[in-house]
């Protein structure tokens, strides 16, 4: 059920003013045709009060029943029917009230068709305006519902994307801790702490929350420390951040999955040492983050590079910025013979 247009004060005033104009107009016309003021006023009051009731009745009906498609013919019939009822009622009441005035009944009789036309027109107008009003209201509600649904879906999707922490990572880390407990208990304790801090970081952050690059780097460092314990000397990282970009903002938990993807790609596609490089700087109004990893063009299919990790980042960036050009990748053969090929992932985060 929607609110009637009369529930809004401004519309109520306009409606009443229009009605008063109608009443006055009616009086003037009757007077012009020779009726004394008093008779004209009584006639106008009775006719227009009845018309007002008919209008309100139509509006109330449309509140609950809005025509669709071919049902407009019903509305037309209802208007016609209401106008006829109105005319009969008005005629009856006017006769009762004013029949004793000389010449009135003749005038009434002659003006019936004009009264009918004008009333039908007015009632029709009110009906059309009401239909437009209610339709627009319904449309607005529909839009709101749609936006709400989309927002919910978006939040759920973002949540899901964020939750896709690799179980592999967790179980392998626990396995490493298990190994350390026997041989190097101090290191095991340290790794438990790092793993806990890392997991807490994934849980407590809101997906839509923005953090500074510095905060995200601290979180990333926890992850890198754990991975370095797992993979030992095979994994080295190099982080080059432009001083001016430490305070730039990015969506929480965006950086780590990108680096994770690079590490996996690098570690599983080469057998030697893997160097992961991270660069960040500000270009125009964007925070630009570049991550590189080595790969072997012989064994890696292009699909693997943009594996699930990057797909979900791409999706997140789209949900947050409605842009698909923020994540780019390219694979460059190294210039030097015998050196590794480098896969580069570049993410741009628009600022403000």
């Amino acid at each position, binding site marked *: 059920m929607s609110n009637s247009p009369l529930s809004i004060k401004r519309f109520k005033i306009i409606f009443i003013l229009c009605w008063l104009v109608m009443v006055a107009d009616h009086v003037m016309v009757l007077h012009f045709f020779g009726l004394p003021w008093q008779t004209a006023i009584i006639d106008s009051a009775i006719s227009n009060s009845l018309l007002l009731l008919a209008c309100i009745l139509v509006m109330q009906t449309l509140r609950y029943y809005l025509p669709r498609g071919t049902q407009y013919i019903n509305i037309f019939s209802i208007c016609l029917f209401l106008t006829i009822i109105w005319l009969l009622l008005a005629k009856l009441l006017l006769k009762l009230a004013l029949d004793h005035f000389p010449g009135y009944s003749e005038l009434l009789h002659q003006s019936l068709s004009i009264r009918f036309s004008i009333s039908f027109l007015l009632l029709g107008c009110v009906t059309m305006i009401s239909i437009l009003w209610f339709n627009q209201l319904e449309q607005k509600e529909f839009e709101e519902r749609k936006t709400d649904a989309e927002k919910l879906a978006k939040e759920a999707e973002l949540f899901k994307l964020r939750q896709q922490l690799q179980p592999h990572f967790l*179980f392998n880390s626990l396995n490493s801790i298990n190994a350390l407990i026997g041989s190097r208990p101090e290191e095991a304790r340290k790794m438990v702490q790092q793993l806990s801090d890392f997991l807490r970081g994934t849980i407590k952050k809101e997906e839509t929350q923005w953090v500074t690059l510095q905060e995200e780097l601290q979180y990333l460092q926890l992850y890198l420390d754990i991975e370095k314990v797992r993979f030992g000397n095979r994994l080295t990282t190099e982080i080059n951040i432009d001083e001016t970009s430490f305070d730039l903002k990015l969506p929480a938990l965006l950086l780590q999955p990108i680096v994770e993807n690079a590490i996996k790609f690098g570690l599983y596609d080469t057998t030697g040492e893997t160097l992961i490089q991270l660069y960040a700087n500000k270009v125009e109004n964007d925070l630009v983050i570049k991550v590189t990893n080595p790969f072997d063009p012989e064994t890696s299919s292009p699909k693997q590079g943009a594996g699930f990790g990057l797909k979900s980042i791409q999706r997140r960036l789209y949900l947050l910025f409605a842009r698909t050009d923020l994540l780019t990748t390219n694979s460059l053969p190294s210039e030097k013979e015998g050196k590794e090929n480098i896969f580069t992932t570049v993410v741009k985060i628009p600022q403000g």
Partner: protein
Amino acid sequence: MSKIIIIDDEPLARSITKEYLQKHPDLEIMQECNDGFEGLKAIQEHRPDLIFLDIQMPKITGFEMLELLDQPPSVIFTTAFDEYAIKAFEAHAIDYLLKPFNQERFDKAIAKWKEQKVNSTEKATQDLLESASQSPSQNHRIVVKNGSKIKIIPVHDVQYLEAADDYVKIHTSEGYFLKNKTMAHFENTLDKEQFVRSHRSYIVNVQQITRIDPYEKDNHVAILRSGVKVPVSRSGYGKLKEVLGL
């Protein structure tokens, strides 16, 4: 004394296996390997009785490494989490240890192996491989041995497969490679939308087909981009039409 090889890309993961093995003085560790390539060499060199094998490793997976061996040894998988793998080898593996695992669980796996060692283990490992390679993660590439080298063929590079006695010839733009598998194996594991058994002895990559011509009275022949003609039987023609949406 039984010979053991540990293959895992994480040093700490190897060290925990080593630690648990200290309780089993009858098992001797011959070598520890970082990846499938090293593992392959070590297995050929030492002929171990049992290997501990991780699945996700650099370059080739544990499964792919096993596929390259003519006589794979007994295998106990040590893996973090892989639901496909678990499903696949539940029925056939000597055992699998889910990381992190404890000494007790480890000892059980060893005991199970010793029990089975009395029986033939080779068949068990073969069965295991057959079912493991049917996991979805396995069907986007084929690993073959090319002389002493290991070649990874992405499936989209495969033009067609041809039966050749006990082997299957995998034809690519670089020539063909042999794999000790059956046609039925490839028919079951490769993506059915892309690879169609066009003939008793042929499986063709539909993305490589440029046209299909009639050939003799009831048969057809598929012309590939490379110009090669692949025989299509009557039932094969029906399957091709279905996949190509004709």
